[in-house]
């Protein structure tokens, strides 16, 4: 199976050899000789060693680093999946409450429509609960450690403070879960993950979960990238920059979250006063003859103000705050991925050093060090690509979010204006 693999349907006619190395444009000077890729270690060689034969080039085992990198061409050419090329649609809706002897919980309907060959049917409809989403996310993190996995809405809610079964809470959660699945759907690598497929299609997910556990224990060397105790020499500038960016970013989001909460609080207190204010005009109107009409008018107007303000506060609580919090969670999980990347790089550096110390004149670098290098490169590549995608999506998301916030405020004022 030497030579270029069969062209993937969505990629262009370019062969892999023509692809620039993902790390080529980065500041390779700082990385030191150890990480500068030598021509021998370019991707095509790694791919040539593996068998990736599936008719459309989809890797069988997506947990292998080399197979991830084989999809680089898809990432590079097909960054934004526009509507026309999209072949997978997922929606979360229809929350339902289930009351059992042991517990009460909510399930959501997950509907899938697709033309992809990985799916046996063009349409699926299954019911899933939060636990299942959580399981999926863990599986994705395990099997795609080099990628940024979108966040889930918060798992635990303080009982007594938030009503887990209130309409507002369930709706907010549903939206977040829908976003979660859509982000995965949009991701060129994650959307092909086998666990994701099962999640969308299996009638009995629990059976698969149990089976999965058994499989994992059977597997020899786990593909976990949790390595411990290696110290990183030098972090590539771009990842250091990403780390710093994420720190500041989540800090600023936290501040915005607090400000938004404060505004909502002030608005509600304002509302309390307005609710007392309006009726006083009514009372006065009752005393007067000629003035009673204008006074009643003012009273009614204030009443409408109250309603509009309530709606504004509700919207901000339900739509604005959760998205902010989601991105804060996102940043945190991304920082964890960055840490893992550091670890992988550190391990590689350590192993390389160990080999150099042995002072043996070997023409070739030992395979396990090679593997490490692969890991590092693939990790970096995946991460970089994901970061770009994330930045883009983030920009869109925030643009929409902030425009939405502005819109809601405009609507509020228009409503009040109308009644005045």
């Amino acid at each position, binding site marked *: 199976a030497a030579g270029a693999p069969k062209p993937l349907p969505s990629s262009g006619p370019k062969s892999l050899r023509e692809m620039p190395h993902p790390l080529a444009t980065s500041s390779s000077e700082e990385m030191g000789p150890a990480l500068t890729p030598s021509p021998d270690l370019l991707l095509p060689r790694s791919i040539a060693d593996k068998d990736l034969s599936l008719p459309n080039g989809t890797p069988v085992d997506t947990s292998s680093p080399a197979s991830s990198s084989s999809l680089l061409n898809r990432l590079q050419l097909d960054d934004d999946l526009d509507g026309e090329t999209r072949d997978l649609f997922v929606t979360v809706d229809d929350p339902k409450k289930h009351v059992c002897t042991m517990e009460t919980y909510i399930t959501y309907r997950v509907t899938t429509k697709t033309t992809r060959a990985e799916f046996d049917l063009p349409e699926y409809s299954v019911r899933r609960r939060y636990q299942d989403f959580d399981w999926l996310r863990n599986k994705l993190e395990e099997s795609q450690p080099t990628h940024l996995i979108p966040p889930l809405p918060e798992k635990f809610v303080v009982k007594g403070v938030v009503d887990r079964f209130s309409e507002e809470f369930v709706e907010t959660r549903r939206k977040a879960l829908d976003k979660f699945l859509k982000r995965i759907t949009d991701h060129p690598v994650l959307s092909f993950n086998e666990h994701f497929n099962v999640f969308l299609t299996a009638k009995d997910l629990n059976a698969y979960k149990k089976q999965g556990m058994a499989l994992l224990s059977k597997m020899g060397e786990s593909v976990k990238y949790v390595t411990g105790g290696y110290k990183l020499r030098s972090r590539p500038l771009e990842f250091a920059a990403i780390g710093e*960016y994420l720190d*500041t*970013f989540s800090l*600023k989001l936290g*501040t*915005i979250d607090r*400000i938004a909460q*404060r*505004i909502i609080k*002030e*608005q509600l*207190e*304002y509302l*309390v*006063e*307005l609710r*007392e*204010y309006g009726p*006083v*005009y009514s*009372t*006065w109107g009752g*005393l*007067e003859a*000629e*003035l009673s009409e*204008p*006074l009643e*008018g*003012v009273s009614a*107007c204030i009443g409408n103000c109250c309603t509009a303000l309530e709606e504004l506060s509700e919207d901000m609580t339900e739509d604005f705050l959760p998205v902010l919090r989601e991105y804060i969670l996102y940043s945190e999980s991304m920082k964890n991925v960055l840490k893992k990347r550091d670890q992988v790089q550190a391990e590689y550096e350590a192993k390389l050093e160990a080999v150099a110390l042995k002072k043996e004149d070997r023409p070739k670098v030992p395979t396990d060090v090679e593997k490490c290098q692969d890991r590092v490169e693939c990790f970096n590549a995946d991460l970089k690509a994901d970061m770009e995608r994330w930045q883009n999506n983030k*920009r869109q998301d*925030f*643009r929409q979010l*902030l*425009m939405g916030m*502005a*819109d809601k*405020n*405009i609507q*509020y*004022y*228009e409503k*009040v*204006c109308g009644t*005045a």
Partner: protein
Amino acid sequence: MEDCLSKKMEITVSEAEKRTGRNAVNMQETYTAYLIETRAVESQSEGQCAPVDSLWRRYSEFELLRNYLSVTYPHIVVPPLPEKRADFVWHKLSADNMDPDFVERRRIGLENFLLRVASHPVLCQDKIFYSFLTQEGGWKEMVNETGFQLKADSRLKALNATFRVKNPDKRFTELKHYSDELQSVISHLLRVRARVADRLYGVYKVHGNYGRVFSEWSAIEKEMGDGLQSAGHHMDVYAASIDDILEEEEHYADQLKEYLFYAEALRAVCRKHELMQYDLEMAAQDLTSKKQQCEELATGTVRTFSLKGMTSKLFGQETPEQREAKIKVLEEQIQEGEEQLKSKNLEGRDFVKSAWADIERFKEQKNHDLKEALISYAVMQISMCKKGIQVWTNAKECFSKM
């Protein structure tokens, strides 16, 4: 009907100045003096610019003037002064009498007071009022020389003292009840409005924080940076806009306050009627009992219990001469009493007539003024909303460019 003074003379309270001086107990005090400027209107129409006369007065002199007017014209709903101390304040407003904003609003209030008096058909003709506007020196002495303080009925000050009036004019009873309710509802309104203003202030100001954090955030962004930065600027504008909005609203609050105090003046007129009616009834009662006494003495029958009667029984009857003398005294008193009663009755009826006329005038004025005030309040609210829409539309545009 003669033209009101306001048509003949331009009156303004144009300036306020801080002064220090020595008060009645020779302690140093700080107070504010207000400059009253007057100019005759007629000469202006001839193409000439009339000279402006001016003099300084302090708040206590205004108070003196008003007290004089209230006592001298008890059947008139006398325009009120702006509040002595800042009341119904929300947190940003100062309760300090020396605060420049308070002084400014008081200046406007005092001018308004003078204009109200000058356009009142009865009050504008008062000489003391005219001198207040034109004669700087010796005015206080002039007022005190009228002896109005002696005429003042201390009972009128006792707001809650009840007089068991048997036959008050029902209209006045209703009106007094109305003025009580009006005072209560406007006070409540002003209190809540102050709290509403406070809260609204908070909401707007917190948005200012967005300005800062958007700016900080924009520093780490590439494509999003400009949009965030300019949106942040709009948030700052939004936060700052509340200051002007609430300042305008204070004017509305002042208009309501004027009628809060007007309600007091209205109540005072009703009370005056009650007192007059009470005095009338007491006088009538006194007359009746005197007549009865007279009759008893004349016929020798004791119908009513009296201490005199008892003592006379105990200590012996009086002589016929004594009885004659008593009857004569009583008859004189009865005659006096009847004349007094007649004049009191007349006074009472005159009072009711003229008071009611002024009350009707007041009602019309009140309805007109408050309707205007409510309309301008609504206009203020609309303007505030439009500003809000503007700012958020601008911010939205900035966001769209992210």
